[in-house]
């Protein structure tokens, strides 16, 4: 290749209007030698839902999972850049990822309740944090917040795995919010759910943003328009031989979908590629 090849595209930084809880600046994310994501600045605003959209393989999940250092579980993962959480870099050397994850909770793509009772699932985080107060009250509150209480209040001793897929996912949300984390990351939380369950989880998210800051990866553009306040569009760059994801554009959801600045964004939201 020509050494003076044109400079790589870098998205214009998004100027957040409100308080920024997590300011994520990715220089490079590697899996071994594979460059997965490059040059992406994604500020997560307080009490808003930030949606990550883009074609598969664009690194949106990777970026989301970097925000609470879930990727550290993958041995070959390497992060270059910084993620400032209330002004502290969570990738600083002395930071313990275990602590980060106690403040930045996560809901996963597949519902993943533990093989224990519904009650124990929700109480798990409380016990983990040696919560001294009324556990029962907290469990009920979390289940109510997750819009699951009425369905399970008579069978709290049943296994969490006995619930339907949508209920399981709401149980996982209840488990995540029982400890009242600061931020909730959601990695395609509805991809394993049917339309009715999806609707319920989406409504739940809109309620949750009153108290929490949310960031969500979604493969479904309609979902982004329904729930996200801010949307970050990622794409994948195959010019360098690999499949490197990068941020194309980030802005208020309305602007991204109605008046995108980048041609690539326009093509994606009009369904020309996915």
């Amino acid at each position, binding site marked *: 290749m020509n050494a003076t090849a044109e400079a790589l595209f870098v998205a214009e930084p998004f100027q957040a209007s409100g308080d920024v809880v997590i300011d994520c600046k990715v220089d490079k994310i590697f899996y071994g030698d594979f460059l997965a994501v490059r040059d992406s600045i994604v500020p997560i605003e307080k009490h808003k839902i930030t949606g990550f959209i883009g074609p598969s393989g664009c690194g949106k999940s990777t970026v989301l999972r970097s925000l609470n250092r879930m990727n550290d*579980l993958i041995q070959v993962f390497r992060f270059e850049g910084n993620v400032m959480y209330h002004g502290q870099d969570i990738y600083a050397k002395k930071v313990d990822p275990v*602590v980060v994850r106690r403040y930045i*909770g996560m809901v996963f793509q597949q519902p993943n309740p*533990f093989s224990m009772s519904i009650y124990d699932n929700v109480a798990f985080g409380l016990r983990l944090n040696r919560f001294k107060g009324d556990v029962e009250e907290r469990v009920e509150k979390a289940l109510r917040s997750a819009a699951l209480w009425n369905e399970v209040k008579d069978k709290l001793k049943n*296994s969490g795995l006995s619930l339907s897929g949508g209920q399981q996912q709401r149980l996982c949300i209840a488990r995540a919010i029982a400890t009242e984390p600061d931020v909730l990351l959601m990695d395609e939380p509805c991809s394993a759910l049917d339309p009715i369950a999806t609707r319920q989880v989406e409504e739940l998210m809109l309620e949750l943003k009153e108290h929490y800051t949310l960031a969500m990866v979604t493969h479904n553009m309609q979902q982004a328009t329904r729930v996200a306040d801010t949307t970050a569009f990622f794409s994948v760059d195959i010019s360098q031989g690999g499949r490197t994801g990068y941020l194309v554009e980030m802005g208020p959801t309305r602007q991204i979908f109605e008046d995108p600045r980048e041609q690539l964004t326009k093509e994606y939201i009009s369904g020309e590629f996915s």
Partner: protein
Amino acid sequence: MSDIDLTTRAIEPPRLPRLEHQTFEIRALKSGLLTWLTWIAAGLAAIPLLSVIYMLIFKGGSRLFSSSIGEVLTGLPPAGFEMGGGIGPALVGTLVMVGIGALISIPIGILAAIYLGVLEPSSRISTNARFLAKVLTGFPSILAGVFVYAVIVIHFGYSAMAGGIALAVLMLPTVLLAAEEAMSQVPQRMKDAAYGMGCTRTQVILKVVLPTGLTGILTGVMLAIAGAAGESAPLLFTALFSNYYISELNEPTASLSILIYNFSGMPFQNQIELAWTASLALVLIVLMFNILARILGRSKY
């Protein structure tokens, strides 16, 4: 589709293939013959098992399931032309030595499995340990006896402790591999959930992986115990044998399997009968642990 009719003259197929079963065609004959051979092979393979069970029940059961059951289970082994007697010391000795083996091998095996299966599945130590565990399970069991003989018996003499350690050497790789397998069955997303809540690695293991994989681990443990209970080669020259009840761990100790071995070659009817009785008792113990393993294995979450 229905408007295409193969029987009409317009298309006229030259000859329709015959679709019925052709019983005497060579292909069919060969198939039938092979099927019969397979059935016969399966049947023949079942004969030894049925024969062993028959002998155990009729030869061994005659003493065990009779009025003399108390004497058989608690009595001392008979000498020479003596009549009666029992397998008491051997029964206790087997249980004691299997117990020692289990006490040593189960904690080490499960902890090692945690390292191999959860903490560092692909580290150098794990890869090597996994390979060596597989090699060790394939080793002749008598080598565990040879090893313990060289390390312990030469210095301290024959003892229940030596026998128990020899059994532990045999059980360790079995427990390890089974426990690792059971823990790797715990779905990654459950572990992710626990990490996502901010668990330390130990908390992930103690609160999620072990409780979820417990039945699988116990199944493996039961199978290891069952295997050890039936072992005789490693006890032959570590625990040796004794005609009396065990009173200390550092003296030669009887076991059911060595009793069977010793009595099988004796020219006395009484001893041979007792060998069958001991066999039945031994098989029942082994089966009990096997069945426990099976029950545990079935009650999956």
